[in-house]
């Protein structure tokens, strides 16, 4: 499971490097499930904080700048906003403003996306905003193997890294390689190979895209699904190569569409791989509304498997002979 893979990654990095520690609300009791069992194994290094996101993240910045490797767990993406000054004006900017004389090897961990029934203040996808702040790497793994390998890489990375745990993938199961498993940041994963259309998915949308791809395969359309998994830096080359092959692009992002990362991916392909496209690229994203509480309303605003399948069908309707 992704959550267990995260715990394993933390365990290994805590064991490997005495500078690593975790702080956040209720990390000792592992309220979010990510730090289960670690408080007793690493006394003093899994530190419960008050509900003080600003000071907690700022203390993470200060500790990182002075020889430690903090992992600041702020629980959920919406709570990042409470600490936004330290994120926007400090973590990502101090190194640049100070001409490289300090670094901030800080990992920030939050859940992202809609867990279901949690409504607007507990369901956001903040990655586009954070990417645009500059100076902060952003990761969104969707499998246990990637969660483990990328969190380990994030902790070892000398830069501030926002490590996102998508609410929809916590319970996703998958093989995790034995031994030391590190995933380099900035490389995409091809979740499923195909020939007729490229679907780029973010977070749990990767899994929904794979489900849609299975439906479409039965209908005679071959769908390639790409999981960028590292959102900043993002491996555009893998996406361009795929679009070169298929000529068609659908991007699925669980985020309000305006200024979304999905729209950035569409724009980059349109600008830099326009010649490869046989049809205009598609973006499936939340409309510019908040995530509602009622399940039928929530299902309406968040992309579902059927939305993805329908978009692919209409995009490939003109494929000759299939």
């Amino acid at each position, binding site marked *: 499971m992704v959550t267990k893979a995260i715990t394993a990654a933390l365990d290994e990095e805590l064991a490997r490097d005495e*500078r690593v*520690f975790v702080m956040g609300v209720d990390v000792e009791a592992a309220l979010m499930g990510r730090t289960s069992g670690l408080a007793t194994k690493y006394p*003093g*290094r899994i*530190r419960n*904080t*008050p509900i*003080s996101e*600003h*000071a*907690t*993240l*700022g*203390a*993470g*910045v*200060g*500790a*990182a*700048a*002075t*020889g*430690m490797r*903090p992992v600041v767990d702020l629980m959920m993406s919406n709570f990042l906003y409470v600490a936004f*000054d*330290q994120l926007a*004006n*400090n973590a990502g900017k*101090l*190194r*640049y*403003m*100070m*001409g*490289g*004389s*300090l*670094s901030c*090897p800080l990992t920030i961990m939050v859940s992202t996306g809609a867990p279901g029934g949690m409504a607007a203040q507990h369901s956001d996808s903040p990655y586009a905003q954070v990417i645009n702040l*500059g*100076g902060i790497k952003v990761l969104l793994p969707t499998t246990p193997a990637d969660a483990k390998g990328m969190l380990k*890489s994030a902790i*070892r*990375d*000398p*830069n501030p890294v926002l490590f996102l745990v998508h609410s929809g993938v916590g319970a996703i199961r998958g093989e995790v390689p034995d031994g030391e498993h*590190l*995933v*380099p*940041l*900035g*490389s995409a994963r091809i979740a499923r190979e195909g020939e007729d259309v490229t679907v780029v998915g973010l977070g749990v949308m990767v899994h929904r895209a794979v489900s849609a791809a299975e439906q479409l395969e039965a209908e005679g359309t071959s769908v390639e699904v790409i999981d960028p998994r590292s959102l*900043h*830096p993002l491996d555009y080359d893998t996406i361009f190569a795929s679009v070169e092959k298929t000529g068609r692009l659908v991007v699925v992002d669980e985020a309000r569409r305006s200024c979304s990362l999905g729209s950035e991916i569409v724009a980059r392909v349109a600008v830099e791989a326009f010649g490869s496209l046989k049809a205009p690229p598609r973006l499936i994203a939340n409309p510019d509304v908040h995530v509602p509480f009622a399940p039928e309303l929530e299902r309406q605003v968040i992309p579902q498997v059927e939305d993805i399948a329908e978009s692919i069908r209409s995009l490939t309707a003109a494929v000759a002979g299939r």
Partner: protein
Amino acid sequence: MPNDGAAEVDTVARDGVDIELGLEILRRMLRIRRFEERVEALHGSGELLGAVHLYVGQEGVAGAVCAALRDDDFITSNHRGHGHVVGKGGELSRCMAELFARSTGYCGGKGGSMHLADMSLGIIGANGIVGAGIPIATGAALSSSMRGTDQVSVCFFGDGAANEGSFHESLNLAAIWSLPVVYVCENNGWGEATRMEVVTARGAIAPRAEAYGIPSATVDGNDALAVHAVASTAIARARAGEGPTLIEAMTRRMHEHSQGSEMILGRMRPDEELDLWRARDPIAALRSKLAGAGAEASELDALDESITAEAHAAVEFARSSPHPDPASAFTDVWADDADATGGAAS
């Protein structure tokens, strides 16, 4: 364990003046003053760009506190940061070169006045966001306490910053974790164009410590030896693992909030107020005390002259330094991936 209530730390009445200590503090204060005088002239003539927030008048705080610190202790600073950076031992040449936006500046020309930093002296930087340095200093204290060193962190901030949420969150955190941090609030009576009392409940900062069970002290920020005594006590407490202290140092800046703001805001402070504080100039006061304790006037003059020369030399160094390489606009977003795997530079 946090202290119970806000025990006032007495300002130590100094019957005798430690001349050697006094000279060290004076040296730091003069370096700040002579540097700022150059900056004032250069900004006024248009040779320096951007905003500068001068520290003139407050030298008693930075000079005295930094004299009580080791090079490996940490400080964070604010937009009025030349005083703290120079007070901690920052090189005048590299500070000035940064203000001149040259590649030899502390930030390679990429930060300017509000982002001077020197990690070799534990200066985690001046910061342009009011209150941002408070959690950062708290984290530096957390770092030394977890690493098991006896390094202390000092956070310099103003009366305005004490109304930021970051102040309250940080004091609470430092109190519950008994962190080795000294919070030094320079109460200069004014936040830009507004009197401190108008925007600050109870009109004082030190009493806030009581809410967090932290000891506090209020001290005359223009009596450098008194500041040093109070700061030394707080720093010793922190170094001994006894937790944080809040110091409120009463002082005044002699210039407006930032150079040029006078044109927009006019002179906000009445002449009587400025005259009163000019008469209490901390450098003149310390000189006078040292002279009274037997320091030779010629020695004091020689100190001032050599520092003045250092400040002028810093200007010449800056003026003759190269401008930044255009390619440097694109560097230092990311640190080198020394022990990460892959980690693409973007």
